[in-house]
């Protein structure tokens, strides 16, 4: 594909992610942090986020699977997930964490499980989107183009 075309798709795709609320201003901050000394900064951070989130989601699943759910522990996990998702700008994931914490406070396993489901969905969505974005980036770079700055 032609570089210009790739770049245009990239920009459009990025804009749509922001528009649909998958990413927020924090993600732009990350992009701004990226510079020549750290050309892959965003990719690294997001990969780290993926790893961390998957671990947390697993922990959450296990914790809610227990006969006696330790809601404090669950709450701690959700809190951390909220922190990391907000730090990378995964807005929808972060937004799911808030009701999840309320469910934890109510100590309602049922609603917690539902929240967990929702978070997992959102997480997979955003993961998909970001991975597509990165692939686009790679294609641009491979084609010899520069990655356009969005916003």
């Amino acid at each position, binding site marked *: 594909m032609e570089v210009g075309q790739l770049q245009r798709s990239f920009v459009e795709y990025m804009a749509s992610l922001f528009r649909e609320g998958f990413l927020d201003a*924090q993600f732009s*901050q*990350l992009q*701004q*942090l990226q*510079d020549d000394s*750290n050309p892959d*900064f965003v990719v*690294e*951070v997001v990969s*780290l*986020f993926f*790893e*961390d989130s998957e671990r947390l989601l697993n922990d959450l699943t296990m914790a809610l699977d227990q006969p006696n759910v330790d809601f404090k522990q669950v709450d*701690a996990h959700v*809190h*951390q997930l*909220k*922190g*990391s998702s*907000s*730090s*990378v*700008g995964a807005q929808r994931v972060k937004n799911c964490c808030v009701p999840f914490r309320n469910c934890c406070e109510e100590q309602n396993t049922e609603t917690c499980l539902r929240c967990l489901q929702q978070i997992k969905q959102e997480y997979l969505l955003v993961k998909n989107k970001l991975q597509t974005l990165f692939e686009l980036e790679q294609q641009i770079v491979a084609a010899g183009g520069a990655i356009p700055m969005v916003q």
Partner: protein
Amino acid sequence: MYPLRYVLLTFKILLFLFWGIFFFPIFFTYFYVNLLKKFQKFEESMNLGVGSVVKTMSGASCSVSWKSGGSDKVSDQFPAGLRVLVVDDDPTCLMILEKMLRNCHYEVTKSNRAEHALSMLRENRNGFDIVISDVHMPDMDGFKLLEHVGLEMDLPVIMMSADDSKDVVMKGVTHGACDYLIKPVRIEALKNIWQHVIRKKKHELKDKDFDQSTSVEDGDQQQKPPEDVDYSSSANEGNWKSSKRRKEEEDETEERDDLSTSKKPRVVWSVELHQQFVQAVNQLGIDKAVPKKILELMNVPGLTRENVASHLQKYRLYLRRLSGVSQHQNGLNNSFMGHPEAAYGTMTSFNGLELQALAATGQLPAQSLATLQAAALGRSATKSAISMPLVDQRNLFSFENPKLRFSEGQQQLNNSNKQINLLHGIPTTMEPKQLADLHQSSQSFVAMNMQGNARMQQNNALLMHMSQQQQQSSRAQMLNETNNGQVSRPPLSMSQPAAVLSRNSIVDNVRGPIYNPVSQTSSMVDFSLNQTTELQNNSFPLVSSNSGMSTLTSKRLLQEEVNSDIKGSRGFPPGYDIFEELHQQKTPDWGLPNIGSNFGASDHSSIPGTLDVSPSMLVQQGISSMKKNGLNGNSPMGGPQLNLFSGGNLLPVKAEQLPDTSYQNTFFPEQFGQDDLMSALLKQQESVGQVETEFGFDGYSPLDNLPV
């Protein structure tokens, strides 16, 4: 031909004019520059545009860069190069923060484990300028780390969390965080964190100024910073600028080693000396206490008016802080702490050695002391230095006092010894062998307590002294509480002192150590929250074991105690409540077990041999009792009460009714350094003394219930 005297007169006038014209601008510039230097120290010296002279001077005097190395060059690029330590268990956040901080041109060290970060800080105390820490971490609570850092390294700490609920933020504030960031953290927020470093350094300087003995200050007055003009010193005497210069010098040059090489011999404000000072001040009345008169009253050879003046200044600040604490309900913040700390600067010089010396001056035979202990505490003889947590020691100390008190009643202790070794409870560097000394001192101390107001005064003085030493506000808080705890009859009139202390501590910084006011009634102090049994056994031995006490524990305990007490006490600032909560979680097991028997020593006779009151209980009671009785001489007990009170048991003793003394158990949160303890003890003593004064002296009512 004019008469000769006209000629001489003219000559003198001309000389004077010459002098003035020539040197006045120089002096003026010097002071101006000094002032500016203060502000420029951490800023780019070149860009302030004060003038070439200023630039030169600031450049030369900017020896204090915010880098510990003290190089001047950093100031030019400040805040670049700021050494930040980031602690967060979330790797994503950690990485992002690191990158952001690097973009701000800071030097970043990251750690995902609080323990690791703490050990890094300990290894390299001057290796970092500021710490940023997450609140929720698996291995250590962020607030705990905050406390540790604040107490051990006294670095500014910024808390951050995704949690933006008000109570968590408040917790951060009350624990002494200099800022609280909500995640996601933006780079703009990080760009300004250097302000906290500067602010803290400024406070440190001020504290350091006060910390050093008055002679240093005097010496500073005589000297000038190396780069300053030479004649400034001579011209400063009696010059309107001298005070300004003094301040500037103190602020500026404290960090410079050359200042310490003052030719003037250092005046160490020992407990005795301070007691004498407080006594003199009380006699004169705080408003009328002028250095000259104080000096005369004290009648200490070798003490100069300047020494007294600077000490008086600190003392006033301390008093102001005490009263200010009571007014600041919510104002628990770092800046507030700065002042009290400064006031306690002189206290820092007080250390175990001094205490020992003081102890040695005690004239009570060790035996009688032991007897006292046995009688008062109804326990076995002194233990050898027990390395108890600091709090315990403190408790012991306060406990000792009441015990001593009682024992006095039972025995004929020498009361001639006016030197209240208030410090002897202070767990600064108590060695086991110091125990005997302590005993002596404590004995004398007790004797003093028994004697009444005079003693109290001394205690107060001591407390004040101690408080002065107290670096941290938390100590002050405790002292305040102790002071507040006045003599009221209620069994645990400790509440006041506790309140005071806690208030102080809260105000200052949660981390301040809280000591049991070693006031004469300090027998109450023996509440070692954790080790009441030990306390009960020997107030003295415990006291001496103060050195062994971990400040952290004691502090924590005290804080917890205090907090809980404060809650109940009248009008304590809300911050205390939070404080209590905060601390409670920290010191879950500080359930003050039986507090030394002397706790309830409201009456000599009524004082049971062993009070099985947990310090917390005592304190609580004390506080409540204090509340009722107020600080005014309602205490039927009079001296003994005061003593107990001054004992500074801030322990929030709840259940048992301490006989009347409000013990100020110093259950301050652990990080109570020895110096802090000393100061806290002194402060407590002072506060107690103040309480006494209320009864017997006019002058200050610092121990007014410091309810906020």
